[in-house]
């Protein structure tokens, strides 16, 4: 009787752990998507910066805000793009750190799940013999 409750507990535990693992994996997927988005943006911003650097001092620069083109100072635009690049890079780094953390967690969860499964199997095997 006690062994069957132990089995039930183990199974419950296993289920919870599996759910946790699924959650982590989902988060990792989200992280990947976000990272892809930022990487693309970073590439675009870098291209813009390159072009802005090629412009002469008195060139007209506009930013499209909603439906309106707003004239901007070249130096200001340059600074804005740089800031944006900085921000995206920082964001990417942050995402990397989170990803690493999550992957670690994922591996830990996997291990615990494996162990739980083994224990469950051994208990069931023992029961079958008895």
């Amino acid at each position: 009787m006690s062994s069957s409750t132990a089995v039930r507990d183990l199974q419950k535990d296993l289920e919870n752990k599996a759910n946790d693992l699924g959650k982590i994996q989902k988060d990792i997927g989200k992280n990947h998507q976000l990272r892809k988005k930022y990487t693309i943006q970073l590439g675009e911003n870098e291209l813009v910066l390159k072009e802005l650097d090629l412009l002469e001092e008195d060139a007209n620069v506009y930013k499209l805000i909603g439906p309106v083109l707003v004239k901007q100072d070249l130096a200001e635009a340059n600074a804005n793009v740089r800031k944006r690049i900085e921000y995206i890079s920082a964001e990417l780094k942050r995402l990397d750190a989170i990803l690493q953390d999550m992957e670690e967690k994922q591996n830990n969860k996997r291990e615990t799940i494996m162990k739980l499964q083994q224990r469950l199997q051994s208990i069931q095997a023992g029961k079958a013999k008895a």
Partner: protein
Amino acid sequence: MEPPAKGTVTPLASLFSEEEARKAASYVEEKIGEKRVEMNRLQQFVDENDNLINLVKKLPDQLHHNVMVPFGKMAFFPGRLIHTNECLVLLGENYYTDRSSKQTVDFLKRRDKTLQSQIHSLKAEIEDFQTEASFFATTASEAAEGLVEIREEYVEEEDLSATVFQSSEKETSNISGGEAEEGELEDDDFARIMSRLNELEMEEEQEGEDGGDRGEERDSPIEILEESQHDLVKGIRGETDRGRIEYGKQETTISVPMKASRHSSSIREPRVAEPRVKAKVIQVLPEAHPHKDIDDQLNCIGPMAQYLPKGDQSHSGTAQQNAGTWRDFQATAGISTAKAKTNVLGPQKIESPIEKPEPEFDSTKAFTGSIVEHAHIQETSTHSDTQSSASQPSKPVSRFKAQRR
């Protein structure tokens, strides 16, 4: 002459089910399709860009052009283009700027370059996938045919491969005796150490040359070890004379102490089985690149960069550039040997978790010959130990000689 009990016979199908291989193949095909669509899209951009360059070039020829000015999607006003030398250009990220016609053309040409390089890397990716797909397909059909893998432990008085190798070994073993710490190293030990030294050498050079890049791209030193190890295995397996001779040259500069090699092995051993998942991509790359990365370290970075996640790839300049060189090379070297190659790759990948470590870490099993019985690949059957067995009967001599003189 060998007692039959010594070897093991494993049907390929038990290692790698046919169905799974097929699934993998179709998955890869799907990926290729996606990439093709993406490439068509890019190609469209390029065409549009080309047209635009011509147009912008011609417009300033006249002061104004009569055109129908679009007003919404369904209506037009008769009107004319004015200020034909002035364009408003989108730089990206919602930034616009006024440019002259000439400046616009320059800008568009730069944009064209970016697009071209994107197409280039996409092409390389597609070819990657194609190799992978054909490998899966071959594996599937091999598994279906009931291909078996036979492995035997190495014993001194072994058959064909070992005898040839021994004769070449004897020349070098007495010279090497002094240098080898244990003095009475077995021949196979010696070869093992040599290959380890090669690895370390490669690592050193790679670290020296692209340390900066790698700092970001590689996560841990262990991974670097693994990568270079794969490269090395590839290099060793390289089938052209050129590859091998170049190899010999490199060995002459070896100065890494034996202890280091021991040490590195102890780092690697516990992880031996693990990196194989990663190895998948690497293995799928045909052995075209080893020749390159041996005589040109820069190119070595190229194929390695390909192992990176695709997202990174498109943004690293070297990756694109080298993907190109690798691809070009493959175009020349790959096609003729493609068939044989996939056959080599097939069984080799499957065995790798168990077999590859053996020649490197386990001295008692150093020369596990693996013979795959398959009608048209018998000649390449000992593929995974090329550095030590039959497919290399004459080369080792020159190789080992080269490193001493």
